[in-house]
């Protein structure tokens, strides 16, 4: 496939790239109004460069979406002054910092595209991206995301985290089990947000013409992971410890977020049917990092509100779903709508069939894609509520076993997709 046309760098960025010429390692930080947390992320990355890659030419790139809270200034002005605090006394190679606003559709994917472009221009060997709202990032993350690429020749490093049982519910209930069942690789955090990848893979990403789609927004994470797996790049995972980040803006729209992620996942199913149709079993991928248990901040849950949203959705959107959901599922939803909190439950089998039916409906273009996928929101909320009720007293390991069971149900019922796809 031909290279897509490069985005136009600002003159000052181009001049900086010309000045740097070439680099070994690049870490990108996408941002939008993250003044509160980005300073810590920049410091962790800089210390990581110094501590784990002292003899390499390293670049930090901040790709910003037009922050108005001084995020870019903080990136420019933040630096590790006391290297002894990170137990460092040896010589450190020069470290370069680059901040630039990105072009294109506002979103994380467009920010990543700018990072890929700069990585390509500097011909880096290894590249990583980390979120700008992280509060738990340490210098070790830089090592864990980049060493598998630099030393072990892996192309893609997905993160492994300790997360609260109710953190990352779209990942746990849809994206992880579905990606695993489809492509056969057990990548636990396919949309984790912090990844390592080779310069070769960054160049490959740039050959794809996806920057006007949902990939330019929240769809970027699943797109990167799936593209790497489906195109046979060498994939592994690294345990990074706890993932603690700033709470998302309460005004951020769940249905838009869900739509972008699920839409990108379903789009990829239409791009790689020959890959996922032939996958019969799943396998673990190599994992790096020393795994340990972490104490996590509690997450408060408003179950009553979630059940209310589910019931409202079933009452009002049933007419839309009856075009593609089987009669028995609709009958079950009707029944569930009237259930009390104590008895409320959406079993794995029902949930898996719902997701597969939505995937088929999206593939067959039964209705406008945005309407279809946004109508999934109340069902997702219902399933999340059911998960919360089931795991209220469960510890991390029990929760993980529960997710593992959901994954197996996704795998066992893959025939629903295979039989009706064409």
């Amino acid at each position: 496939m031909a290279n897509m046309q490069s985005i136009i760098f600002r003159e000052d960025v181009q001049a900086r790239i010309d000045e740097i010429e070439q680099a070994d390692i690049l870490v990108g930080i996408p941002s939008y109004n993250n003044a509160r947390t980005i300073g810590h992320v920049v410091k962790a990355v800089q210390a990581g460069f110094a501590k784990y890659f002292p003899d390499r030419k390293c670049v930090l790139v901040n790709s910003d979406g037009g922050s108005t809270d001084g995020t870019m200034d903080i990136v420019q002005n933040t630096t590790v002054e006391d290297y002894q605090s990170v137990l460092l006394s040896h010589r450190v190679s020069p470290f370069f910092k680059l901040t630039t606003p990105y072009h294109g559709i506002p979103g994380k994917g467009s920010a990543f595209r700018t990072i890929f472009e700069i990585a390509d221009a500097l011909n880096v060997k290894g590249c990583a991206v980390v979120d700008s709202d992280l509060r738990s990032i340490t210098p070790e993350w830089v090592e864990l995301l980049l060493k598998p690429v630099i030393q072990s020749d892996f192309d893609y490093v997905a993160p492994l985290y300790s997360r609260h049982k109710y953190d990352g519910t779209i990942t746990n209930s849809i994206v992880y089990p579905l990606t695993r069942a489809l492509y056969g690789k057990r990548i636990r955090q396919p949309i984790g947000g912090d990844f390592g990848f080779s310069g070769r893979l960054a160049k490959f990403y740039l050959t794809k013409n996806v920057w006007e789609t949902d990939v330019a927004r929240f769809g970027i994470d699943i797109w990167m992971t799936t593209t790497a797996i489906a195109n046979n790049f060498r994939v592994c995972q690294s345990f990074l410890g706890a993932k603690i980040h700033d709470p998302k803006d309460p005004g951020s729209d769940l249905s838009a977020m869900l739509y972008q992620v699920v839409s990108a996942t379903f789009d990829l199913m239409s791009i790689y049917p020959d890959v996922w149709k032939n996958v019969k079993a799943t396998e673990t991928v190599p994992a790096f990092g020393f795994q340990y248990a972490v104490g996590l901040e509690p997450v408060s849950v408003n179950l009553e509100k979630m059940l209310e949203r589910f019931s409202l959705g079933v009452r009002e959107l049933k007419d839309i779903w009856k075009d593609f959901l089987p009669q028995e599922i609709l009958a079950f939803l009707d029944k569930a709508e009237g259930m009390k909190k104590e008895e409320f439950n959406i079993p794995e089998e029902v949930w898996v069939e719902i997701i597969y039916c939505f995937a088929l409906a999206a593939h067959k273009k039964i209705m406008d894609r945005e309407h279809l996928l946004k109508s999934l929101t109340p069902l997702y909320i219902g399933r999340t509520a059911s998960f919360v009720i089931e795991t209220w007293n469960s510890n991390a390991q029990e929760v993980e076993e529960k997710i593992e069971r959901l994954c197996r149900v996704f795998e066992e019922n893959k025939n629903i997709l295979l039989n009706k796809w064409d």
Partner: protein
Amino acid sequence: MNMYETIITEPFLKFYEKLLLFLPSFLIAIFILIAGIVFGFLLKNLFSRLFKAIGLDKVSERSGVLELMKKGGMEYSLSVLSARLIGWLTVIIFAGISMSALKIPAVEKLLERFLLYLPNIFVAGLIILLGYLLGNFFGRAALIAAVNSGVRFSKFLSRVVKYTIFILSLTMALEQLGIGKETVIIAFTIIFGGIVLALAISFGLGGRDLAKDYLEKKIKCEEKRDDISHL
């Protein structure tokens, strides 16, 4: 000339002469009409195959037009519908030509006015169809958005959106047809303004307590927080 010839034979001969003069025109008109029907049928089949060959149905499927048509209650595919439209237009045009071949001044005048008015009917029909399809589309969009925001009267909101768009398109269509131009616009403005005012008053009065409760909850943070991070 006797009385019999004056009263009976002469008018009959005149009528016969006129009939002889009219008959060729009439036959030509019939011929043109039949030719038009045959030509329309052939064109319909030809365009139906052409549209299918160039993949018009696939384009309509990809662009969402087919889905809009289905939801609007249309049973045909876009290629069949377009081919039928072309066929009927051909028949109508030929029917017009055939009628003008009759050379009857009254019919000619009527036909001229009808033909001049025809584009208005076509455009008005198109506006109503578009209004109906858009009404359904945006009505559903409003329903989903309202449900996802937790609005209890989502269906009512969706219907308001749907019928407002449809009534607006109906008003535009009537204006296009020149029927009660000002009256229709004024009526629409009054009805629409009335609905908005009624809603404002009813929500203002009826929702006073609701708004108070909501603000109290928000300000006093009484509502239980939900910190689930979905991504």
